[in-house]
């Protein structure tokens, strides 16, 4: 019997053809990957399955029965569970409230069964190794943990098809292991899994078959055994996969950023580090190790409890983001939707604003701005109908490119990057790395947080490893291996 079948599915948004005549099927009980470049149409296809977007033509069926959903509710009722790329959470509710929103457990008489929900939540959090309690307010969780809570939410209900749209973008291998263990278990119970990720190794680990979309068209479905990462990437981009960005050959220059015994109790303590001109330093650690908090504290978003920061040998006091920008810091934040984009403005002001603010531009020169933005959009392959569109019409990875582009355009003295290529496809990731490298070679210092170990190994000159709010040690980027880094990030301290 056939499982989930997509037949000739098409959908466009205005002039953009998001999906053209896509047909493939997912066998019942398999783990199936959906991959493609940013804007290839993956999320659109999944949103059709979830009843959020309606197809213009074509149809879907599940075990021979047609699926036609007008609302997300219908899809949920038919057993389609989904984790959205946008990480939709309720900041005002607790973790348990988030997991059960819309499908609360009730006692007879309709009262909420808080106890049952809390217990079930605690069990799910334990299964995924999430360090949070059911009563933790959602707005106090860092982004990576929010992502895990979203996954827990999808797992909390009996569904037949579990759809995961880029659930691992903020996770390191350690958390991915926990997640995959749970997903494997569900698969053994007969669930059908649809999985989207830009991390090719992950896809090969989890999925039996891989469907590639290119420019909204079906570019092939491969068995894991018959495919290699290279064949997949070639099908995705339609050309040879990009090489690595060459590491700088010149020696690093003077110290641009010096952080001394910086603390923000209880999140991290006594962090001392330096970043030199011409150098990319990566801060690596598991979710919750304090890596994002260090960047946010340096940038003045959260106050430090102790320690000092020097830029170019000058001690600086940074109380807020404005001070930070004035001192020559730039920051690409982790949560693009909440911290990085103006959804009411088109791409031109979105990309130009930080630079304009820095240069203290009074009068806007529309023509120049446009030209510059069009140039950025072209170099980073930002897929959009025009630079006059608002960011919400872009796919997730393309939104990320906008956020990264706008801050890189300010060429600060010291650039802080938090997951700069979150959800960005392999090709565009290469372009972003090249852009970062180019600016670093021109004398910028860069401190980067990334969960993606291959990215860290490809880009960083030095790797600082954090664990539980402390720096554990330093590795050389050119010679470090996956194992060495992960071991330092997870190893128990021997007293």
């Amino acid at each position, binding site marked *: 019997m056939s499982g989930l079948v997509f037949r000739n599915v098409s959908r466009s948004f205005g002039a953009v053809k998001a999906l053209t005549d896509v047909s493939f099927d997912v066998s019942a009980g398999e783990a199936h990957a959906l991959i493609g470049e940013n804007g290839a149409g993956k999320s659109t296809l999944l949103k059709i399955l979830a009843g959020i977007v309606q197809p213009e033509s074509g149809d879907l069926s599940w075990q021979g029965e047609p699926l036609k959903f007008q609302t*997300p509710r219908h899809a949920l009722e038919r057993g389609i569970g989904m984790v959205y790329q946008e990480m939709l959470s309720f900041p005002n509710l607790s973790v348990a409230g988030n997991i059960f929103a819309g499908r609360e457990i009730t006692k007879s008489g309709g009262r909420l069964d808080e106890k049952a929900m809390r217990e079930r939540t605690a069990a799910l959090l334990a299964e995924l190794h999430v360090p949070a309690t059911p009563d933790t307010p959602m707005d106090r969780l860092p982004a990576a943990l929010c992502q895990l809570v979203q996954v827990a939410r999808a797992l909390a209900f009996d569904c037949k098809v579990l759809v995961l749209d880029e659930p691992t973008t903020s996770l390191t291998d350690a958390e991915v292991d926990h997640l995959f263990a749970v997903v494997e278990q569900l698969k053994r119970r007969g669930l059908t899994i649809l999985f989207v990720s830009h991390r090719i190794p992950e896809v090969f680990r989890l999925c039996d078959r891989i469907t590639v979309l290119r420019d909204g068209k079906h570019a092939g479905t491969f068995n894991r055994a018959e495919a290699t990462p290279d064949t997949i990437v070639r099908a995705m981009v339609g050309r040879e996969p990009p090489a690595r960005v060459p590491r700088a050959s010149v020696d690093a220059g003077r110290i641009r950023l010096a952080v001394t015994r910086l603390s923000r109790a209880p999140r991290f303590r006594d962090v001392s580090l330096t970043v030199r001109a011409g150098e990319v330093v990566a801060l690596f650690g598991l979710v919750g190790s304090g890596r994002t908090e260090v960047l946010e504290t340096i940038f003045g978003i959260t106050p430090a409890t102790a320690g000092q920061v020097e830029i170019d040998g000058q001690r600086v006091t940074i109380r807020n983001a404005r001070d930070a920008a004035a001192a020559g810091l730039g920051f690409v934040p982790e949560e693009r939707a909440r911290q990085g984009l103006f959804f009411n403005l088109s791409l031109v002001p979105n990309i130009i604003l930080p630079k304009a603010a820095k240069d203290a531009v009074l009068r806007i020169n529309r023509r120049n701005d446009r030209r510059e933005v069009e140039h950025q959009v072209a170099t980073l392959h930002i897929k959009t109908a025009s630079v006059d569109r608002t960011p919400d019409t872009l796919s997730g990875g393309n939104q990320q490119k906008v956020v990264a582009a706008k801050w890189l355009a300010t060429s600060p003295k010291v650039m802080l990057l938090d997951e700069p290529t979150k959800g960005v496809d392999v090709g565009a990731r290469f372009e972003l790395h090249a852009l970062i490298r180019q600016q670093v070679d021109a004398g910028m210092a860069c401190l980067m947080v990334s969960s993606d170990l291959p990215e860290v190994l490809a880009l960083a000159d030095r790797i600082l490893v954090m664990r539980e709010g402390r720096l554990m040690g330093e590795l050389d980027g050119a010679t470090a291996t996956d194992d060495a880094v992960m071991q330092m990030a997870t190893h128990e301290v021997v007293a």
Partner: protein
Amino acid sequence: MKPFWRAREFSTLAILALELLFFTYYLWPAGGGAHPFFNFDNFVLIFKYSSIYGIAAIGASIVIISGLIDLAPGAVIGLTSVITGYCFVVAGWSLPASMAAGLLVGPLAGLASSWLVVKVKVPPFIATLGVMGIWRGFGFVVTEARFYDLSSKLPQNWHVMGLPIDWLGPIIMVLLAIVFHILMTQFQWGRAVFAVGGNETAALFSGIRVGRVRTMAYVIAGLLASVSGVVLAAVQGQGKADLANGYELDIIASAVVGGTSLAGGRGSVAGAVLGALIFGVLRNALPQIPGATFYDRMIVGVVVIVIVVMDQVLVARSAAK
């Protein structure tokens, strides 16, 4: 679970207690004798006036938590008193039937508001501003700027179930506060209201019927404003088009002082009632302070801002832990 003193409503209760202490001390009669503020009859009076705002504020807090705003409750209270008065005085209906007719005014306003907001996608501020104008205006059309005198047809020294009529509002307010507090905190529907106000898209994707939840919120708010209107008509013995003029802002302010966030997703029904009482005490006590007569509006304005700012500081501090 949080201990009770960490609950959101506790800080509102604490403010109310402080306020009572302050006025009791400040208005202490110099030469002995009866206390002008701290006495049973005065408390009944405070409760009686606060209940008009308080009952409507329950509905306002629900609407605001769901991420909307309602400017119509003042107009609904006015028109409710007019319809009740018309049916009772002019049409000669029985009192319960007249009140029932009055109670339809609010839900209809709620339906109109929610149709505009949910279906036509008019911004809630504008939609309810329009509904407020229409409902208020209709009261004038019906009464032709006169008023209906219910009191002459009502019994002197009126008692309901053995209690003086002044107690009607407070009792209804407390009962409704309990019912809706439980609905909002212990039932699925209440959780859905919080979810919709917290993140509309996430709520939609979670299968919550966002439009239906918001429609219910407006209808409930309308119904509760109508209950205020019926109580006001009975207690004042009047049906008058410009009754409760401008109350909408005090009703919203009661909810906000009680911890409801205008951004949606956070708040409390019990807090809104306590907020109404905080206002009630101020309105009752300030005129008794010699020389404060011309300052009382300014003082109320300052107090609202101080309470809300204090609240934000407290919330920020507890979040930093």
